[in-house]
């Protein structure tokens, strides 16, 4: 197990592999795969783990993290100057999100609908709209005992974590041999933001009709974005044969299977890494990375 590199005339270039861990369905084991893979790889590589599930981040529960940096992620929202505003209504007509409304008596801004795009202040004919920052959430960055770690946290009541994910990914650099990004569930905009410019996607699913249905959605997304990928089956149950049949039929690489085991569920529930509890699981995570690099190459 070693980091990926390519040899050129200038010598070896570190590929600094960026791997996204995602799943259509929630609760299939993204966090388990992310936190355990990071630990295993940190033995002989420089690893960065980013928890991009900014609505409900959990990776930090599995490590002692020393946070060294914390910063707010802001969006610029309009602030209307009542003295200069002529109530012309142009801002309300041009706002695509219904976030600014003009009435006879004044202007009302719905902060939660505002995307912070700047259209209203740009088009105001009397320059009555300034912008002021509003916090959407925060980024935290630091170290576990084994690798560097960053996470985003969306403020309660905010509708979207996309901007936080975009800022979080700026911690990625070529200094790392490998970066693991733990994505939110689903297949919509926050997941797309995670997938932008990654090298490989690990799709985590489970042996159930739900898992298979949602896996197909995740597969159509990574295919459309042209990202190489493979599948991890968690809580593997041979009684649900459709899943493995589907993977074989579509020639989709199966990277790892984790059998259903109440012990594993218990370790997870206590915030323990499963690779620390079982030699066998440790070896299967080492093999997971080998399979990833094989598919990627």
């Amino acid at each position: 197990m070693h980091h990926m590199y390519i040899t050129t005339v200038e010598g070896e270039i570190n590929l600094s592999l960026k791997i996204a861990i995602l799943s259509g369905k929630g609760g299939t084991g993204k966090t388990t795969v992310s936190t355990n893979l990071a630990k295993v790889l940190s033995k002989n590589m420089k690893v960065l783990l980013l928890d991009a599930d900014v609505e409900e981040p959990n990776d930090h529960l599995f490590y002692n993290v020393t946070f060294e940096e914390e910063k707010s992620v802001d969006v610029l929202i309009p602030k209307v100057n009542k003295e200069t505003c002529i109530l012309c209504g142009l801002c309300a007509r041009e706002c695509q999100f219904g976030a600014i409304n003009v009435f006879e008596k004044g202007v009302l801004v719905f902060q939660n609908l505002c995307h912070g795009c700047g259209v209203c202040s740009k088009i105001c004919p009397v320059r009555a709209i300034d912008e002021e920052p509003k916090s959407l959430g925060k980024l935290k960055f630091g170290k576990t005992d084994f690798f560097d770690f960053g996470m985003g946290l969306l403020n309660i009541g905010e509708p979207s974590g996309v901007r936080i994910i975009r800022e979080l990914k700026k911690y990625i650099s070529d200094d790392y041999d490998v970066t693991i990004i733990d994505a939110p569930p689903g297949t919509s905009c926050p997941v797309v933001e995670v997938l932008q410019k990654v090298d490989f996607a690990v799709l985590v699913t489970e042996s159930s009709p739900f898992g298979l249905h949602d896996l197909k959605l995740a597969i159509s997304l990574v295919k459309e974005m042209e990202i190489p990928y493979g599948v991890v089956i968690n809580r593997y149950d041979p009684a649900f044969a459709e899943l493995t049949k589907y993977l074989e039929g579509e020639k989709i690489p199966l990277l790892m299977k984790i059998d259903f085991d109440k012990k594993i569920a218990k370790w997870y529930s206590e915030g323990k890494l499963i690779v620390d509890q079982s030699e066998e699981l440790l070896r299967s995570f080492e093999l997971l990375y080998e399979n990833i690099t094989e598919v990627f190459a």
Partner: protein
Amino acid sequence: MKQIAIISGKGGTGKTTLSASLSYLFQNPVMSDCDVDASNLHLLLSPVELKQSYEYYGGKKAEIDYEKCTNCGICKDTCRFEAIDFQQDKYVINEYACEGCKLCVLTCPEKAIKLVENLAGYYYESKSPKGVLVHGDLNPGEETSGGLVAEIRKKSFSVGENLKKDVIIIDGAPGIGCPATSSVAGVNYAIIVTEPTLSGFHDLQRAVETLKKMRVKFGVVINKFDLNESVSSSLEEWCFSENIDLLGKIPFDEMVNLATREAKPIILYEDSISSKYIKSIYQKISQILFNK
């Protein structure tokens, strides 16, 4: 007509399993699957027969007319979503990042950019053995899933009114962002399904804060409580100290996997361990909603 939403901060705690079972316990429900990123409720209400489908248009996207574009790059500099890249010899819109705000349209000196409509998904009215199911699929990679959830909620409501239903059962989206909050906005009651893990506990607290901020009445169900009884009792103690209704606990039940494979809600397996716990949860909820 009452509306109940089943949500969870963390995914995979059992929202859909509980939603499908409640659909069978309530006499006269409309089912509304609002987890549009990963809609699964139809898989437990089979056979589901599609009656009508509707197109859902999300936010618009920018499009560049290369006949007019002079490669000045002003659009890229002003875009706040990093949605315009310079590739090879021209500026291109990254449609995944574009939020359709129109700033580039307004700032382009050549008027070379316009916004175009964007078909973001579909929603459906279907027939199931327990009545009408309204559900939808967001095209993978799309944004504005909260908007599609709102359309599904509206359709469920009008179906419910027309057919004189008593209750709408909403299978909600995970998380605390727009799809989740759109699933619970204005409901009579929300049920948060959690599990006895540190992650489940952490996510429950954020879901509770979100619902409190939205002033939605809610209670908590602990699913698979016996997988870790000590975390489960901390969850219970926390709910007690926060004055949160604990509607019930459901034990881990291997029959649930079997029921899912057979495309049926667990409540139809009368011998299953979990079905009697779910019945008592149902009784508590109907008492809260209908005082009976």
